């Protein structure tokens, strides 16, 4: 019987019924300390430190603080120090503050080449779905499961259902992978993929670069998907080739990876079709990523929503966002523009934003921040002179980390501030208590910074 890529990944890693072997465990400072404590309490060790890698990202300041001991916030400092100590005790490689390999965990995995097709990858972070862009089965787990993987290199898992979303045609000019996934979440809803491993397919997805594919898979969790994945192809192989952790016998690996894609005729529990050519630049208006419209639209009217639960959610979201129904999206003025996060902080994202900003200045009222996803991204961007473009445009050029995506560090919005953000979550208070987040692509964020309000990137110059 023809098999899906998910079927192949699952079956190749099943140690016994429902027990899945994990090829790579990514660890960060926030969801791991209690797991390491658990190991010590039970007198257990880490089974495979050689399949485990750690970095500090959520808590780190992005202001140029050079070492963990210099982190001003006491609790943040303790948490990063705890990670370093735990990794040392259990023999796990760690790239903490001060390392030139430090960065957002979902940026450094692909960058080092430890993310490869055919693998199972987990991390105590819901955006682990990012790594599925390589044709891997990658998903987020909680701290008890982090401890379980540390101790056993396995996870007890319920086999999810499968969903394929096929994108016909090609994205139009100015329409990006971020818009593709935001539009998809808007259509399916924040719970639309729950219980499913999702494969993104079709010509529009095949045309995407690896960073674009990572953006799409990254946001799978925003529709509740267990994992997002894209079939590996030449684009994937070229990304992995030559990276630090690339397989020694690369050709043999590629031969194996070519056998991963879903076979013709394989069945999915759910199939969705999307006309990629009809998609537009998207802007979220509410407090879930599913509350999203095209940039040419207006803030929706809750009164028009049929379901009482959805109507109440929309009303609450508008009150929190201080928005009136019917207001054109392009009339929304901004206090802050944030370019960064595991959704959009790779070199390609920064190039796209810089191309829009080159030779221009941000509007007087706007604070612009660029936070590269890793030290490597930062160094590459600086070698290309992108930092100069951002600085000349009036943006702050900062150090690598999660930064304002979740405001666990000093980078936060003030109460009531409105922000265009390339991150993946617009929940209440996510970027700072009372902060108002609109999710967009890097290009849309850059153009909005210049004008001080949203613009349709397709007819803006």
């Amino acid at each position: 019987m023809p098999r899906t890529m998910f079927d192949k990944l699952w079956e190749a890693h099943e140690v016994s019924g429902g027990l899945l072997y994990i090829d790579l465990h990514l660890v960060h400072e926030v969801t791991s300390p209690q797991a390491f404590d658990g190991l010590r309490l039970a007198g257990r060790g880490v089974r495979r430190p050689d399949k485990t890698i750690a970095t500090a990202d959520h808590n780190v300041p992005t202001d140029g603080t050079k070492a963990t001991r210099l982190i001003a916030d006491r609790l943040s400092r303790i948490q990063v120090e705890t990670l370093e100590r735990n990794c040392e005790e259990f023999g796990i490689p760690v790239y903490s503050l001060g390392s030139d390999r430090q960065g957002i965990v979902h940026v450094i995995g692909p960058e080092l080449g430890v993310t490869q097709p055919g693998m199972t990858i987990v991390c105590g972070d819901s955006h682990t779905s990012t790594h599925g862009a390589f044709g891997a089965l990658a998903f987020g787990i909680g701290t008890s499961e982090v401890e379980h993987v540390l101790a056993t290199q396995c996870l007890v898992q319920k086999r999810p259902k499968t969903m394929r979303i096929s994108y016909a045609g090609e994205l139009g000019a100015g329409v990006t992978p971020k818009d593709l996934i935001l539009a998809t979440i808007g259509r399916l809803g924040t719970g639309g993929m729950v219980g499913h491993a999702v494969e993104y397919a079709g010509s529009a997805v095949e045309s995407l670069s690896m960073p674009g594919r990572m953006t799409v898979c990254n946001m799978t969790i925003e529709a509740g998907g267990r994992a997002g994945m894209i079939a590996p192809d030449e684009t994937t192989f070229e990304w992995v080739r030559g990276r630090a952790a690339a397989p020694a016998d690369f050709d043999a690996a590629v031969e194996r990876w070519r056998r991963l894609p879903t076979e013709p005729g394989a069945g999915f529990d759910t199939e969705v079709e999307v006309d990629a050519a009809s998609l537009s630049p998207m802007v979220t208006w509410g407090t879930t990523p599913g509350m999203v419209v095209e940039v040419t639209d207006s803030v929706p009217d809750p009164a028009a929503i049929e379901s009482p639960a959805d109507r109440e959610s929309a009303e609450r979201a508008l009150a929190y966002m201080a928005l009136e129904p019917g207001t054109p999206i392009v009339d929304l003025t901004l206090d802050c523009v944030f370019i960064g996060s595991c959704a959009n902080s790779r070199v390609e994202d920064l190039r796209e934003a810089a191309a829009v900003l080159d030779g221009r200045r941000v509007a007087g009222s706007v604070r612009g921040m660029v936070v590269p996803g890793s030290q490597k991204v930062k160094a590459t961007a600086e070698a290309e002179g992108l930092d100069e473009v951002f600085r000349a445009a009036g943006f702050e050029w900062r150090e690598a980390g999660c930064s304002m995506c979740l405001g666990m560090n000093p980078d936060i919005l003030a109460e009531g501030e409105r922000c265009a953000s390339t991150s993946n979550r617009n929940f209440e208070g996510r970027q700072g208590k009372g902060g108002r987040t609109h999710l967009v692509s890097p290009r849309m964020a850059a153009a909005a910074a210049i004008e001080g309000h949203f613009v349709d990137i397709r007819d803006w110059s």
Partner: protein
Amino acid sequence: MRPIDVIEGKVSVLDRADVDTDQIIPKQFLKRVERTGFGEFLFYDWIRSGEIELEPNPILVVGRNFGCGSSREHAPWALEDFGFEAIVAPSFADIFYVNCTKVGLLPVILDAEHCRAVAEAGEARIDIDDETVTCAAGVFEFEVEPGVKHRLLNGLDEIGITLESVAAIDAFEQSGGADRGPVTTAL
């Protein structure tokens, strides 16, 4: 984890859909390296602003897609520490659901109509072994996977159970399937 078989008592209600884990436990409380003491920060912004009120009853009834967003296990830790023993909803986010079962906080899926009935009854009795919720409006069945049920009823440590299969894990590793991945310690 302590064994649980029956959860009985008053019901608290949070009638909202898509409640994300950022609301359940805001990020500023994730900096702690301990596993306990999160209850006082549960729904921090919503409770502090007076937007909602919650009694620490044994059962909490909530709207669909509860626990969406971040994988932070701090969310079930906070709910459990606050005093809840079971969460009843029409649906849960996947990671949150799994995290609850690891902590011994019972997630119960009932259809929206039955959730409303439990909320209105104000009191209920949840029997894990029978997989039933009983309240003034009737007896409603729910499902819990056999493995999870066994673990909850007996208060078992899942890592301990998996380590009983260590021979199978050894065999899997020796079969070569596990050797192909990158070696992080060699970078």
